């Protein structure tokens, strides 16, 4: 059983927040320990003095709040199904956006797939510039010629 009590314990007891068995032990301690009793009386007196202060809102404010509550009652609360619809629409839009982003052709595609995709996706002027660039074609041609030269059986 607890025998030493702090000021926190006294406050818990004062405001009826102490477990029953501890409160029982504290009552016994208060009957024998004068120092503990005087500390308790101090808290009890001070809290009872300040507890007498009470303030009320004006009647006009109460009436205004009641009127506002009535007005709120006239507005139908937001239905959960509306939120569900909004959520599902958002998910669909995000999914469509992601799939469209992932489906865009890249420069690493070969000519055949690029041609196949170009049927579906309109090709931008920038990507057209890459594929129709003469210098790019010339570079490929040079590379092919070098490869052929390296493969020449005479060399």
């Amino acid at each position, binding site marked *: 059983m607890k025998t030493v009590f702090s000021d*926190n314990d006294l406050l818990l007891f004062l405001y009826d927040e102490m477990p029953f068995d501890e409160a029982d032990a504290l009552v016994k301690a208060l009957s024998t320990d004068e120092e503990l009793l005087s500390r308790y009386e101090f808290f009890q007196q001070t809290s009872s*003095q300040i507890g007498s202060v009470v303030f009320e809102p004006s009647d006009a404010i109460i009436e205004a709040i009641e009127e506002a509550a009535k007005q709120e009652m006239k507005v139908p609360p937001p239905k959960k199904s509306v939120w569900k619809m909004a959520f599902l629409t958002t998910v669909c839009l995000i999914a469509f956006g992601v799939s469209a982003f992932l489906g865009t052709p890249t420069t690493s595609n070969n000519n055949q797939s690029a041609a196949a995709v170009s049927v579906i996706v309109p090709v931008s002027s920038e990507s057209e510039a890459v594929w129709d660039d003469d210098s790019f074609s010339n570079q490929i041609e040079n590379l092919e010629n070098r490869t052929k030269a390296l493969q020449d059986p005479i060399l």
Partner: protein
Amino acid sequence: MDKALSKQEDRDLIKAFINGNERCFAILLTRYKTKVFTTIYLIVKDRSVAEDLFQEVMIKVVRMIRSGKYNEEGKFLPWVTRIARNLAIDHFRKVQRNPLQRESEDYDIFATIPQTEGSAEDQIIRTENQRYIKALIQQLPDKQREVLIMRTYADLSFKEIADITDVSINTALGRMRYALLNLKKIAHETGTLAHYENRIQR
């Protein structure tokens, strides 16, 4: 009908209010208006600001309940107090950003005291006592004042205060302890306590 309703628990009143019974909100308002308003008033220290915030809190409460955002069954007051505290903090932030918008120190104390039974002299003594105590509380450091207000006027447990203020229960208890000790100290330093005790004895 209202008598039967007023005996119902908070959660039942809230359910009935969601189902369209607006009287249930009026009963909740009557049940908690003093605690919530006193809490706000002692935090913001200005009656007109407190009334604006109180109205804002209650309208927010209505909207949140109606939109199904209230799910703290049986803990209506801590939930409302949390909203009130957050709005009070928002208010202080706005005031800090705009220092021209200052709180008025003057307030009509007579307008804040509930009409109770008793002679005119009793009323005056009660009013003066409230004024002294309010002045003492307002000299406390913010965190101590906050815990003291929530425990004494909003009637929240230390566990609930700890949750709302995001501290441990021991910290909340420690702040309360210092608040009570400091009240006594401030009262002695300013001589307010002697005046107050004389009033009590009369």
